[in-house]
Structures are given as structure tokens and as C-alpha cells.
């Protein structure tokens, strides 16, 4: 059910309509959404971990992480606050690379970050070329305000599912709602099904 908003015409982005999920609009800026101050972790104190329900936890220092094979990916990103940004270019390490050879019975993952942010998603949404730990944006080191030194990139879900300032992935055998997920936002967050809030 929708009512006509008298006198509203709007502005369509016809060229990219099939790439813009319902309720979203295209922006050329790169807005920032964060619930608190931006953390600044020196690279010599940064590491990245795979832990939880795994046979053996893994950990990389910044140098070890940067020595892993990385790839450039170009994707559209969709923020739950309604903006969509097309053709963003990232460089990062595929989560497949980080989990290669890891034995686990887990179905779920919690991404955890400096500053205490967490977000949850099914493990399968991080696998098979769907997710990266990104450290460059548009050819430059990722700025702290946008999640640097490294953030998750899971472009097929709303962007709060791509944790900024990420420090590790915790593999779990149960679903554990993260920061926004306990504050009214959807547990899965598929932009094409407009899963913004609880019950969507």
C-alpha cells in the first residue's frame, strides 16, 4: 500500500535503475556511518585473527596480512541509510584465502572491530568470492573514517554488514546478533529484499 505524495516528482537515475535496490538513491559522495569515534590503531599493534569454532586459531600481523595475495574488486555498495554508491574500487584479501584449510563446524560468523563494533552473518555469505578484508579504496590506503587500516567488504549485503576497523572473524555454531542487530536492524540485511529492520 502506498499513497501518492501530492506534488512530489522525484529524480530518477534511469541509467542505473537495475543496480539500485528498492528505497535506495545513488550518491557520488562516500558518506560515513559510525556509532562512535573513529579508532586509530597503529599498524605495529594491528593484527587480524580467525578464531572461535576452528581447529586452530589463525593470526596475521599487518606485514603478514599484506603479504597475502590480494585482488582488486569493483562493486556497488548499499547503505541502510538509503545511499547506494556504484562501481567502488577496492583492494583486499579474499576471505576464502584467510579461511583456506581451516577446519570448522561453524555456520555463523561475528566480525569484530576496534572500538567494540560487531556484526553477524552466515559463514556462507563470506565464502566463494563474496567477501574481502579490504585495505585500499580507489587506489589509496583506506582512510580511518572509512574503516582503515582494514575493513570487511561484503557488498551483497547492506554495508553495516561490512565492519570497519575489523580485527577478526569469530566462527560460531550459532547466530549471535551484533551491534546494530540488537538495536533494531535486520539480522541478515539483503538490500534487494529491503531487509533494513527487524521483521522486514
Amino acid at each position, binding site marked *: *500500500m*502506498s*499513497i*501518492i*505524495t*501530492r*506534488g*512530489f*516528482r*522525484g*529524480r*530518477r537515475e534511469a541509467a542505473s535503475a537495475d543496480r539500485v535496490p*528498492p*528505497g*535506495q*538513491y545513488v*550518491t*557520488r*559522495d*562516500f*558518506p*560515513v*556511518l*559510525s*556509532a*562512535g*569515534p*573513529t*579508532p586509530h590503531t597503529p599498524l605495529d599493534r594491528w593484527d587480524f585473527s580467525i578464531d572461535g569454532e576452528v581447529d586452530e586459531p589463525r593470526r596475521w600481523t599487518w606485514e603478514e596480512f599484506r603479504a597475502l595475495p590480494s585482488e582488486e574488486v569493483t562493486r556497488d555498495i548499499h547503505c541502510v*541509510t*538509503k*545511499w547506494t554508491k556504484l562501481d567502488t574500487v577496492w583492494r583486499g584479501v579474499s576471505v576464502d584465502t584467510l579461511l583456506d584449510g581451516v577446519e570448522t563446524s561453524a555456520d555463523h560468523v561475528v566480525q569484530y572491530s576496534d*572500538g*567494540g563494533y560487531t556484526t553477524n552473518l552466515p559463514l556462507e555469505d563470506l565464502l566463494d568470492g563474496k567477501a574481502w578484508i579490504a585495505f585500499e579504496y580507489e587506489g589509496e590506503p583506506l582512510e580511518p*573514517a572509512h574503516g582503515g587500516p582494514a575493513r570487511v567488504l561484503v557488498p551483497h549485503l547492506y554495508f553495516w554488514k561490512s565492519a570497519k576497523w575489523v580485527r577478526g572473524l569469530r566462527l560460531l555454531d550459532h547466530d549471535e*546478533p551484533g*551491534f*546494530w542487530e*540488537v*538495536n*533494531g536492524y535486520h539480522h541478515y540485511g539483503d538490500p534487494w529484499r529491503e531487509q*533494513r*529492520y*527487524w*521483521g*522486514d
Partner: protein
Amino acid sequence: MAGTAVLGRLTWRVADVVDVRAETPRARTLVLDVPGWAGHRAGQHVDLRLTAEDGYQAQRSYSIASAPDGTRIELTVVRVEDGEVSPYLTGEIGPGDRIELRGPVGGYFVWEPAHGGPLLLVGGGSGLAPLMAMVRLRAAVGSPAETRLLVSSRSEEDVLYRAELGRLAGGGLTVVHTLTASRPAGWSGYARRVDADMLAEVGPGPAARPHAFVCGPTPFVEAVAEALVALGHEPQRIRTERFGPTGG
């Protein structure tokens, strides 16, 4: 904060525009009556959905500026000249019109009287709106929470809620203005962007462990939050809400 957000599905409701108030040359407040509205918490926002005659839809989020008051809510919209939605909301829409919305949304950037004080509220431009909901709620329930509200505006004519803030000040609420672009003759207040020195003077300092809420454009929020951390405020006590320069 677990469990404090709204339970269940947020359905679209049809709100009636009952009044429109000019706030500044570029901003106005829409007073909406929302049948079935179950209330909100100070700091939360709503999603608006606008539908053109050909079915095209646009959605935007706006913070609720009013304290909980039955089925009424107030949204303050600042016009973004090249925006898609804000020119309509600040120009075309008026009393008697209807608009779809759903909410309230958000369970983190929220203050309730039971949280107590002290409060340090820092707003830039229309980022004042959710902080105004907190100040209005504080006044409505007679909360004694010591509150410092620092308002950053471009010029005197751009200051939102100026007269009301003047009336509300006192009784534990201190309102401080800074004007960043132009000042009227004889202006004796701050005349620069918010910085650490200003925040230290406005207080409360980190020793008082205030609940800090910062809302405004991204560069404003980044600068204020970083300055608060540099002053020694605990990052976990600093809650932020940012909006980008476009989209309006």
C-alpha cells in the same frame, strides 16, 4: 542496549501534516500526526517514503526533533539546494497533505531520563534535531541532569530553535552557540569551528564522565569526536550520528 529497540515489524503508516513552521530561511519543521504511533525515544529517527504519481519512490531518514507526545512528531528539514527530497519537504508540502513513514528506528543514539547526566550534546547544523528531542524531553519530565548543549551554525540566521533554546536554558541546561561563517555585529560568542579548547571550556570534562552525543555532517562529527577522545573522554561514552553532504 540489547532489547531496548522497537520490537516487531516497522510498518508503513500514513501521517497527516498538521502544521509547518519556518525555522530559518532554509529549514522548516513538519508537525505530523501519526495514527497508531506508539511513541519514540529521544534521538531516534523515522524513514519517510515519497511516491510520485508514476509510482517512483524515494526514501529518506530524518531524526525526530520533538519529545514523545502522543501521536505527534516533529521533523526539521534543512533544504539541500540540489537535493531530491528536501526541496519538496521545505517547499511544496503543507498542512492537509499526507506522507508515509515508518519508525521509530535506532536504539543506540538515544537518551532517556533514567540514564541521568551529565550530558554533553554537540550539534552541527540540522544535527541539532535529535539533540533537541533530548533537551525537550529533559524539560518535559523535569530531569535535573546537568546538560551542556553546544550548537554550531553557519550564521545567526541559520540557528535552529534559537528562541526556544533561549527559553529552555537555565536550571542545569547551558546552551552555547558558535557561528562558523558569519557573525552579527557585536557577537560575543564563539566564532569558529568546534575544537578541543572550546569543548574543554564548555565542559563537562572527562572526570565528570558525561554521556556525549554528537550529531552533524561527517567532517564535523569526526572533528568533535576526535577532540573529545583527545581531551580524555572515554570513546564508549561518545555516541555519534553522521550524515553526508548530499542526499537531502
